[in-house]
């Protein structure tokens, strides 16, 4: 176990190195001078030169990279060109809504995906199965931002049940906070449930084909007990993989969904930074999110230990 863990951690290093290079290059694929682009057409040549020097853009690329990555490893992601605060603080300020939204979106995706997947597998080839697969197909085709807007029209504009945009931290009262987060979580969770539906279905069908299921049925167990006590436990293991996969889609979706509901999260930060050409913030956000994603996937893999005693590395 320990050797496996160290192996896995070491295997992360090249991936994270590539992540760092990609994030670093984001600024340097800009056609022309990044300093000029950041400051806009109106800036004087002297201002551009100063910024170029401040950001170290006048040094050779490899030197810039080493300096940048060195600081990033110490948690220094530079300073926002627009707000003049450390990027790490800017990210920390925006992390809360995104983390809450992602967690809620994941919950929605699982709450829809797993039961629907189970129903679909148990009543295989029935109209229920067809309907579930239809739902999964439709879910995968709906852009989360469009679903968000439709939910706003329906529940905020027509019915007036929920606020259409804004955010309240859960620490200021859970009820209040949830009011703002229900619609975004649905907009994010519903499209992402389709992969979970399909995986739950196929995984459960695989397990249901096993001999021990037939044995359980033969000894007279009720259908429900067979499904929940015997089949589902084993079927859930592969579903963990898809939870990891969904997380990436979810984080990307959160970026877009936040914009629809004006949630002050990472997504809004990165989009406004793109429009302001605030490169240090863009780099900081992409680096943070990619690193977080790599770590989440590692955690998901390690969870296999907890769920499946057969897994030994």
């Amino acid at each position, binding site marked *: 176990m320990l050797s496996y863990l160290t192996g896995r951690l070491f295997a992360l290093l090249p991936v994270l190195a*590539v992540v760092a290079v990609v994030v670093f290059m*984001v600024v340097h694929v800009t056609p022309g001078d990044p300093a000029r682009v950041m400051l806009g057409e109106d800036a004087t040549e002297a201002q551009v030169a100063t910024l170029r020097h401040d950001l170290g853009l006048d040094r050779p690329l490899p030197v810039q990279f080493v300096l940048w990555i060195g600081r990033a490893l110490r948690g220094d992601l530079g300073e926002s060109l627009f707000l003049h605060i450390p990027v790490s603080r800017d990210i920390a300020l925006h992390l809360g809504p995104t983390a809450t939204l992602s967690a809620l979106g994941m919950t929605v995706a699982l709450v829809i995906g797993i039961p629907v997947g189970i129903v679909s597998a148990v009543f295989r080839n029935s109209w229920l199965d067809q309907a579930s697969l239809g739902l999964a197909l439709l879910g995968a085709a709906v*852009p989360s931002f469009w679903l968000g807007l439709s939910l706003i*029209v329906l529940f905020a504009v027509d019915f007036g049940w929920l606020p259409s945009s804004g955010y309240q931290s859960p620490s200021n009262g859970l009820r209040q906070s949830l009011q703002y987060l229900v619609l975004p979580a649905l907009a994010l969770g519903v499209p992402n449930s389709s992969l979970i539906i399909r995986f739950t279905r196929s995984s459960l*069908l695989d397990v249901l084909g096993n001999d021990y299921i037939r044995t359980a049925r033969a000894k007279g167990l009720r259908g429900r007990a067979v499904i929940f006590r015997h089949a589902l436990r084993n079927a859930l293991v592969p579903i963990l993989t898809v939870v990891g996969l969904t997380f990436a889609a979810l*984080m990307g979706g959160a970026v*877009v969904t936040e914009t629809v509901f004006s949630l002050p999260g990472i997504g809004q930060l990165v989009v406004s930074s793109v429009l302001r050409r605030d490169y240090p913030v863009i780099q900081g956000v992409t680096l943070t999110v*990619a690193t977080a994603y790599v770590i989440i996937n590692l955690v998901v893999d390690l969870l296999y230990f907890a769920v499946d005693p057969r897994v030994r590395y």
Partner: protein
Amino acid sequence: MVQQAAAVRVPARVPGRPGIVSTLWKMVCRRRIIGIGVLILLVVAAAAVAAPLLAPTNPNTIDVPARLHAPEAAHPFGTDEYGRDILSRTLYGARLSLTVGLVVTLLSTTAGIVVGLIAGTNRGADKILMRIMDGVMAFPDILLAIALMASLGPSARNVVLALSFVYTPRVARVVRGSVLVIASLEYIDAAHAIGARRARILVRHILVNCASPVIVQATFITAYAMLGEAALSFLGVGIPPTIPTWGGIISGGQEYLRQAPWISIFPGAAIILSVLSLNLLGDGLRDFLDPRLRYS
């Protein structure tokens, strides 16, 4: 007698290799969803090609007196805040969406095949190339695309470049995996043994047999790319809003959600229909081409 002999010597078709049309037809008959997917896709493509004929007005014609009109005979999908016809804009948006989807698929598939072939046949290059692909895949798709758009600047060409970069690793992984499996098969040894050149084996024997998974993956990439383009344009970092795109129209309608929800609803329905048809096609092709992968 003579006729018979001739028939034996010159068979109309090599047995066991049905023509492409009959294969396609068999595919559609066996997997109904392929037919449905292709049908919807053809309708969307026809709408895109015939946009100038079908559109009631020029998509950019401003008609302020007719602003924010609900769907009516003159404007079946209604009008936006400048009185522009949403049906016309949605039709022209189809041109852009489909083009972006197809070009991204073409570029990322080509790049992915090259990377996958090299990685699958060369151990040294494999380690380096696949680590790079893993690194690129460590970003959420849309976030990486946004970051790339930040430095490339908003334009249709740059959306294509950014999305192609994002999706290349998916193809590369599929190709590499297939190449590794196929290269270890006996008939490849046989090809080496009879003295076939390396390049010939690579293309004629290995690459051709990777086609099925690549085609399936390419279909899904077209769907992802269309969703990706819509998201980028919706966020205002994709194709400039002067050009009608589905994401851009939806974004413009966001402010008028209360008075004029139709601005956002129709282009959204167009996205759903296109992506749905591509997913149907992809699912059907996967079932048909590789029954082992079938999820049912």
